[in-house]
């Protein structure tokens, strides 16, 4: 009997000893210490960036599809974004439903953005152009452009997310320090590497928000 109790106690303790199932990236996003709410704007962004990479690169597709119906709007929005970038055409119907019916603007915005990446559901995108929120309407207009485009924007995004960023590298740019190198795309789709111009001429870089 004593042996049985010891075995059962041991089994109960296993999860806390590191034997628990690893937490999925979506679960980690749900449990963020600083979720993407206004009050956390300047806090915890490194974790939000890292998890976005992890979700887009590695989250289970079925879990992402289920997350479109999650109670947490941040999780729904992130799942919508990831499914568009992953090119999951099976999620188009649900994304179109979110575009029309989700009460949270950020979910409608991500859902219509993803329909643009998938180049599907033009009627839902057209409806979103008339969305009451100007941000959703703006993104819907861009998604409508993408419907007509030959470029696979989802693939470009997948390729960009495939280069992982290390947590310790985030925010390392400081006055007095060498400028960290990065690669981005020019408007004609060619790769641009900062190091090709560094050390040759003075450079100004503006990191923009769309309206900044």
């Amino acid at each position, binding site marked *: 009997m004593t042996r049985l109790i010891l075995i059962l106690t041991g089994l109960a303790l296993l999860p806390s000893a590191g034997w628990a199932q690893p937490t999925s990236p979506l679960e980690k996003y749900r449990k963020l210490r600083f979720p*993407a709410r*206004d009050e956390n*704007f300047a806090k915890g962004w490194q974790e939000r960036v890292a998890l976005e990479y992890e979700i887009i690169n590695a989250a289970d597709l079925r879990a992402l599809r289920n997350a479109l119906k999650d109670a947490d709007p941040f999780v729904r929005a992130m799942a919508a974004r990831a499914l568009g970038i992953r090119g999951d055409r099976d999620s188009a119907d649900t994304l179109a439903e979110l575009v029309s019916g989700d009460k949270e603007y950020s979910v409608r915005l991500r859902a219509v953005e993803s329909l643009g990446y998938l180049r599907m559901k033009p009627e839902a995108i057209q409806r979103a152009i008339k969305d009451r929120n100007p941000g959703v309407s703006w993104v819907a207009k861009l998604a409508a452009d993408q419907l007509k485009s030959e470029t696979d924007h989802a693939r*470009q995004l997948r390729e960009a997310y495939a280069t992982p960023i290390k947590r310790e590298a985030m925010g*390392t740019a400081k006055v007095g320090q060498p400028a960290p190198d990065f690669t981005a795309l020019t408007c004609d789709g060619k790769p641009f590497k900062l190091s090709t111009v560094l050390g040759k001429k003075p450079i100004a870089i503006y990191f923009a928000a769309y309206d900044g």
Partner: protein
Amino acid sequence: MHQQAQLRLKKDEVEKLGADVYVVLAMDLHRTRVFKEENRLLSTFKGPFSREKSLVYATALSDPAGYASALYGVARKCLRWGAWVENQPHWIVIDRKGTITFMLEPRFDTPTAYEKDVDQVLEALKKAALR
């Protein structure tokens, strides 16, 4: 966009310094092209920049996964004032040796704050050109 619109008014001064200017967007290539080539945003308001077709003089770069933005510490991926924001705008100036000499986080606290911001960037570029 106001920062970029203001900067192009100083294009000659930037060119005289032999400087390169880049604007990085944590967005896909299509959005970056629209930002660079079409004045869709400010053309919807009444203002000094409303009638021009394109307002961006700098070389526009698409940073679709926000890698550069995270490296430079400007990524946010968060709501602010109820709207989704990928990046907190920042200016960075780098001298001829490849060293960062200036960082500025615009405050947007007055309707014309961008004028002073761009003047500060030009001053920093002048110093960076001498180093």
